[in-house]
């Protein structure tokens, strides 16, 4: 059965089990590999994508739930906030192993798209669902502040 939705700005029709988690539809059917598998239970955030601008965990969202909606993955990031986040990530040398960072970038971008000047508490609220076992958290926090500043400038 096919599900049609907007994937990174383009109409996509994926012929897959409608119960298949969006994560695996994106990775194995659409062939976009930037979104990662970490826990399969919405506990770690490695699979974070945007659905209609909201950061969601694609490992627990069935493909059928995005029918007709807009899905953005790390490959489709285009907003000013997203570019600022990625530039800040490089400037502050955030990643170590890098595996969780697609999800971190997606969560940080969704935060900045709604809140142009997040406080530390806002960052805790938006980012605590994204685990980084390398514990790059201090740099993620600093990079979000840097990105917010650069969007404002």
């Amino acid at each position, binding site marked *: 059965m096919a599900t049609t939705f907007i994937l990174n700005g383009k109409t996509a029709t994926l012929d*897959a089990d409608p119960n298949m988690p969006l994560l695996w539809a994106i990775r194995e059917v659409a062939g976009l*590999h930037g979104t990662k598998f970490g826990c399969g*239970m919405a506990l*770690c955030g490695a699979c974070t994508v945007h659905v209609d601008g909201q950061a969601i965990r694609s490992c627990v969202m069935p493909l059928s739930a995005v029918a007709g909606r807009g899905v953005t993955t790390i490959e489709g990031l285009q907003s000013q906030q997203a570019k600022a986040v990625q530039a800040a990530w490089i400037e502050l040398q955030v990643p*170590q192993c*890098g595996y969780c960072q697609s999800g971190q970038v997606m969560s940080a971008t969704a935060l900045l798209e709604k809140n142009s000047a997040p406080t530390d508490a806002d960052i805790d609220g938006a980012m605590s669902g994204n685990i980084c076992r390398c*514990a790059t958290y201090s740099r993620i926090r600093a990079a979000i502040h840097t990105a917010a500043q650069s969007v404002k400038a």
Partner: protein
Amino acid sequence: MSTPIPVPAKPSRRAFLKSAGTVSVMALTVGFEWAGIGRARAAAIAAAPAGGALFTPSAFLRIGADNSVTVIAKHVEMGQGAYTGIATVVAEELDADWAKVRVESAPADASRYANTAFGKIQGTGGSSAMANSWTQLREAGGKARAMLLSAAAKNWRVPVSELTVEKGVVLHAGSRRQATFGSLVRTAASLPVPETVQLKDPKDFKLIGHQAPRVDVPAKCDGTAQFTLDVELPGMLVALLKRPPLFGATVKSFDAAAATAVPGVVKVVQVPRGVAVVAKSFWAAKQGREALKVEWDDTNAEKRSSAALMEEYRHLADQPALSARKEGDAAPAIKGAANKLSASYEFPYLAHAPMEPLDAVVKLDAKSCEIWAGDQFQTIDQANAAQTAGLNPQQVIIHTLYAGGSFGRRANPGSDYIVEAVSIAKAYGADGTPIKLQWTREDDLHGGLYRPMYFHKLEAGLDANGRLTGWRHVIVGQSIVGGTAFAGLIKDGVDGTSVEGAANIAYAIPNIDVELSTTKTGVPVLWWRVVGSSHTTFAVETFIDEVAHAAGADAFAFRQKLLEHHPRMKAVLELAAEKAGWSKDPLPKGKGRGIAVAEAFKTYVAQVAEVTVGEDGHVSVDRVVCAVDCGTPINPDVIAAQMEGGIGFGLGAALYGAITLKDGRVEQDNFNSYRVLRMNEMPKVEVHIVPSTEAPTGVGEPGVAPVGPAVANAIFAATGKRHHVFPFTKAGAV
């Protein structure tokens, strides 16, 4: 981040993805001295990108006519910054243009790429990547530079002594001529490799000791970095393995009917470790595995609970044990002491839980076994894969990809995940079909190879003047290396990985007795980031804190006095205390400050933690000040990142980490029950690096060791309560 250095071009996808279009260029070879194995010939890298002449002066780099400098990394990049460190050292001696430097993973070949700290084994671990390759890579860069200079001298008919090199360009000031490395590769490739080379004076370093941006960062910010999860080969299938719920159980029988009925499931095969479902997609394999019915034979399985094991360990601590260190006679010294102290500590099993669950892609046929993995132990994995497949190790090709974390997990003597993948490919038919074995998070937490559980018992004696006169430390737990290819690390029955950080305690104490009682259980164990010091440092550094308190001394000053003969350890202790503003004055109510110091893998680290303990007992760690002496700092920003990350990793374990067993069954399933540190719990971290020209030592692990005890000592300062049981949550404090 001080010195700005241009960000290098994004490293291209691994060569394997385009290997069909490569040519083989044998340029020239150079010999290298490898510790333990004498002089070996290093062959040229065989596969190189098509297009243009190449200069391949050693196994560690090649320079293209397009001026590209490709450094060959023999160590896996698993987050620790090895690719950047390796490239920095080569580029420094080569005087390369950092913007032109890219890194490629070395093939599995111990004859060229052995870790000199491991002997003849290619692999990464023990925070040794930079330490073991420092001289090797400096010489590789220096010899290549010398040959490029000779090539320019030959072309221009001028003496080498009149030439200089700046960012990949050879200059002759007298005639104002200049030539890029790329323009010299043809001539250079025809020249002999020098026997020796003059290495740079450290004062002339331009990259080493300065901030060079990591070569892997850009691709890790836009989703293009290639992990094993992302490998996709034509016709590839995905396998999930159903493993026994108890360690040591085996398959009695299975019914694959429901599993094979799941659309997308191709085959169900039995392998030594369980029953695998091979399917066209992860989702199909997962549904197939859920539908699969397996009956297990539990006859030889471990059925004990971790609480029962700990009870056994507690009794063993009072039984005779093997000596790991004995100086003077601790027992009578403590018995006759004016003030006697004792404490016992409990440490749980811990899972590594790297963000990328274990995975490996295997393409097996009758003559070869090709493996794609975030491989940390190439030579061991080659041998184990070969044995499983019935091939020679030379027939096993390993493509080492970025590892999505490891913390020791991907370096295991039994190569568990690699052997599983090869055994599935073999059972599937060894017909060349690529198969990706994917572990889930539940597989990871249930899968064993944990940091062992330990029980520690410590006793100390103080004389009437508050001087420490006797120290006795008994450790009870499983051996990590026993029964493996690394059993050579066991000396006189004592596994060095069980007692490191305790047997080599740096404090000057006249009577020291460190003993080990090695246990056996059916739970598979493995080294976990910082290995022995993940538990020994906690016991030593919290107990010395208790001793200092009993002596009426300041926790910092007491340690400082006992480290008079240990200048590097003392220096980091003093630096951390100074930067943290250590003082004898107590902090406001509810706040506390604690200090701890460790030596791990020849790196010295001290940390001061500041905590706030709420009325309800909730602990928040506000700040950690870290001082580190790792010899010559190759990349200060990477060192800082490893300290920050090590602190977060160690703090998560101290506060929350535990794998427990109930009747042999692991009680944790996912990140809801195996809690790790999250953003809101990360303290502010400051890192201070001791300037040094000593040979570099490792930074991937040592930062983990002191954070637990520093925090525990800070909690004591705030509350007067000591923590003896890991994690602190078990003691009801967080």
